[in-house]
């Protein structure tokens, strides 16, 4: 291939634009990171761009000394673990049922799923229902309503149908029940599916804040994302009421604590992200074929 002038110009312009894209995506993360390691009062002076000027661990110490943040962290970890496991197991169990080739009433079940996927009664009636079944203000409001992911239900059905029938047939002849076959045979050969679900359901649980803000009043049940929202909202207040709150800690400001909370909540995602990248591209493609 010859390189023409046009080629070179396109290459250079492309490099520059892509670099800008990468920088504008990553720099906000980086800025939050250095702000979390810089003394809050110094950050407030402005001019912090590339490196922490007054390196400190005070923000993290402050974060982990506050009851509300520790509690929120614990609840978030708990809901993510319980919610993700429950979501994966329940969704794939229902999918295993639906994947049965000659399932009676299959068409009806499918219509029920497709309608539920596309029609919504809105948040208000959803709230009314949650309230009437007494899920409001309990830990389970984080877990139970999100146990069935319809999107992954459809993906899992087509995944299970690809699994050769011989695999479960021999176990069935040995007299194993369907639940046992599902747990012992189907789940272990579905690891790519489970990993994809784990990533999406897990990040959904980890990031969720709306349920914590509106479906729960008990302050001991608040999640990390909710606490962060609280701090950000206070900081957004036109009257600068929030500064008084932190004067006890000389070097910590509401912004530096907020940056710390953001880093702590982004950290697990960044850690697992590179390993699961191939799965989420897969998941997106599966989804788009369905969509």
């Amino acid at each position, binding site marked *: 291939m010859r390189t023409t002038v046009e080629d070179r110009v396109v290459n250079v312009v492309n490099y520059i634009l892509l670099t800008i894209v990468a920088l504008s995506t990553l720099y906000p993360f980086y800025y939050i990171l250095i702000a979390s390691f810089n003394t809050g009062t110094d950050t407030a002076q402005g001019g912090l761009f590339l490196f922490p000027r007054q390196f400190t661990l005070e923000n993290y110490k402050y974060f982990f000394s506050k009851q509300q943040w520790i509690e929120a962290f614990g609840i978030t970890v708990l809901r993510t673990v319980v919610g993700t496991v429950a979501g994966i197991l329940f969704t794939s*169990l229902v999918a295993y049922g639906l994947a049965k080739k000659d399932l009676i009433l299959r068409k009806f079940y499918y219509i029920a799923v497709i309608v539920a996927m596309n029609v919504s009664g809105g948040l208000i009636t959803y709230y009314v229902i949650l309230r009437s079944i007494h899920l409001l203000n309990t830990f389970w409001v984080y877990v139970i309503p999100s146990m069935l992911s319809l999107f992954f239900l459809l993906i899992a059905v087509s995944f299970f149908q690809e699994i050769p029938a011989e695999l479960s047939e021999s176990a069935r002849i040995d007299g194993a029940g369907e639940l046992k076959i599902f747990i012992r045979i189907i789940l272990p050969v579905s690891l790519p599916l489970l990993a994809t679900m784990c990533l999406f359901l897990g990040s959904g649980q980890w990031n969720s804040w709306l349920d914590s803000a509106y479906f729960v009043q008990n302050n001991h049940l608040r999640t990390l994302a909710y606490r962060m929202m609280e701090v950000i909202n206070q900081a957004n207040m036109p009257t600068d009421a929030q500064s008084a709150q932190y004067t006890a800690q000389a070097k910590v400001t509401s912004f530096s604590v907020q940056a710390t909370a953001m880093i702590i909540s982004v950290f697990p995602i960044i850690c697992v992200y590179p390993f699961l990248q191939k799965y989420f591209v897969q998941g997106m493609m599966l989804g788009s074929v369905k969509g």
Partner: protein
Amino acid sequence: MKTNTNDAMRELPLNWQGDSLGRRFKKQIAFQIFVWFGLAFLLVFSYAPMFGILIAFKNYKISSGISGIFTSEWVGLRYFRELVRDYNFPNLVRNTLSISVLKLIFSFPVPIILAIMLTETRSAFMKRFVQTASYLPHFISWVIVSGMAYAFFSAETGLVNNLLISLHMIDEPLKILTDPNSFWGLAVGSAIWKEAGWWTIIFLAAIAGIDPMLYEAAEMDGAGRLKRIWHVTLPGMKAAIVSVLILSIGSILGGGLVGSNFEQVMLLGNSLNNDKSQIIQTYAFNVGLAQGRYAFAAAVDLVQSVIAVILVVSSNAIAKKVAGSSLY
């Protein structure tokens, strides 16, 4: 079905009754039960709220629970009349439509352009690096994105204002987070930042499916890089572009591809930019949960759903006429 029966009869002649409906059902009872769990779930968390929308036409008290949905008295279109007379209503409709349409116009081309740029890179490292970076924001919450918006744009401590003031480009800090007139731009911009990279996945796959022979042929005919993009890459992406466009028009009131009108307004909206930030959905939510006017709020929700359905159906019809493909 017929051949199945025949096969079974040939193999197990004594067991031919096994294929009667009742016996078949008994044999697959475990699978049926698994599905019923799911069905029960849908009944409670999807279908009950759908029927619950009846309260938009009723004098519903929250204390009456689920049965109250059916037993409370009808009030006809009372809440809809109230909504239309509400002084917020014109604003709500304007904001909902403007934010949605602006998002569609400005966010839709971004992943397409980014995907083309990524394919045109000669460096595999650069491609991989930019891809990995640009998918990342998809996995963080809107709470964090709004925290970043605060870190960068706040009038007191925001990085952007700091920088511009120290460079003497402005004298007064820009009130990006509180000025009503900057909200639409903030919403569109932050949504693109968060989601555009993610959607390149689909367009990259579409480009990967283009026959390399087409590029060679175009090159032989003397087409340069830009001409090849225009005449080979873009036409090759047409199917993907049309189907993503239809999908995003279908969900336009939620924010289209980049989504999350609701979360954005909940998090970036505040008492100062209310005028331009409040949308139908957030209004319903706030009125319903903060003031306890559940029936009225359900009516507001229903209005939004009806507008959405009209948009989906009409966009689908237009797509059918123009591009010859549609969702249904």
